[in-house]
């Protein structure tokens, strides 16, 4: 008997940024959508975020940054995932992010960027549509 496959999500706050109201609300919205959500807490180094993602075997990492350091922190997370052969984990970002930076972040491997005003429904639906807990049965 196979039980239901649950989407596992890490909501993470990289860097020196103490504003996590948005991250917490998002974590709650994901919970209410039936996902299992791990919240990293504040002030995380990209290394800590990536190790947590690996140990928890998450399908999606949601990075929240309101400090302006996203152009360093977000790509760094992608880089570390690659180093750990874990680029199959989808990464999205959100926060105070200038429009001009969005294409650059996407080029770096951030799949989607959500800005202030994005609806929770849109964010949750994005995960439903774009992320599947399907990385199973791989043997290498």
């Amino acid at each position, binding site marked *: 008997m*196979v039980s239901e496959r649950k989407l596992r999500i890490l909501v993470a706050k990289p860097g020196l940024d103490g504003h996590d109201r948005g991250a917490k609300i998002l974590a709650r919205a994901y*919970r209410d959508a039936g996902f299992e*959500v791990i919240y990293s807490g504040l002030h995380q180094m990209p290394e800590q975020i990536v*190790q947590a993602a690996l140990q928890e075997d998450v399908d999606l990492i949601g990075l929240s940054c309101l400090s302006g350091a996203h152009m360093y922190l977000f790509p760094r997370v992608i880089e570390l995932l690659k180093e750990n052969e874990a680029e199959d984990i989808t990464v999205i970002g959100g926060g105070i992010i200038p429009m001009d930076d969005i294409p650059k972040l996407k080029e770096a491997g951030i799949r989607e960027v959500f800005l202030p005003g994005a609806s929770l429904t849109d964010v949750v639906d994005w995960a439903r549509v774009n992320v599947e807990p399907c990385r199973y049965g791989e043997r290498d």
Partner: protein
Amino acid sequence: MGLAKRVLQGDIRATARLLREVEEELPGATDELKALYPHTGKSHVVGITGAPGSGKSTLIDVLIDAYRREKKTVGVIAIDPSSPFSGGAILGDRIRMQRHATDEGVFIRSLATRGWHGGLSKAAANVIHIMDAMGRDVILVETVGVGQAEVDIMNFAHTSLVALVPGTGDWVQTLKAGILEIADIFVINKADKQGVNEVEVELQAMLQMGAPYPDAWKPRILLTEAINNKGIDDLMEAIRQHREFLVASGRYEAHLRERSRLELIEVLKSSFMDRVFRMAGGDDYVEKLIDDLASRKVDPYSAASDIIKRILQEGTF
């Protein structure tokens, strides 16, 4: 290479993946567990239970630190409740332990209860096995925040800690059966708060009334302030003494045996049920039977004997 082989080498990714496959009960996971089983039974499993907010996660955070100073490798299993409505969960224990995320000697895995009662999750037994096979010296298991009766942890842990905080009830609570009976070590955390002496005295009174066997372990009562790293040396010492007691008294072996018995029964039950349902006519038949039960066309007793009749007619089991 199979996942099991990589788990034995301590591979984080493979271990994380296998834990997921076990939790999702994917068919391939059983073979991996079979391969790992001979390598299990070595870790010291320490359970930490107690009410929500009693400081279990923070205690684990400082215990990780203490074990790492002793150069011991640590596995942590942290369980939080699944929503009975959405099935989702916030797995928030890790927040308190994130400073250890980049330490290769520490592997932390959060689990949701997924409808399982008793303070743990269905997969917990196998998750312990996998971390054990991975070679972790100590496995710390944090139950969900519990009330009075969630005592599953005692069947899994060699050493059970029950975390309490001052100001959570009077003497009548210490008379009750349940969680207070399973503690090998009582940890009165947040010991800087008012009311700490009352809790300690009530617990002492409770313990004096119990312990009818002269050779039984006498539960310890310790005061800690986990967040200030106070009382942790004494706690580590008590855990060590309890382990020594278990080994010296033969209870360590007995625990392993009892654990194996329960595990066999659990595995037998679930494979038996799967087989029974399949032989009786598979999902369609079972769903139809459940419809009939729900609409009260049939009662559960007759339904069960109908299933048994069908299996006996099949002849081979």
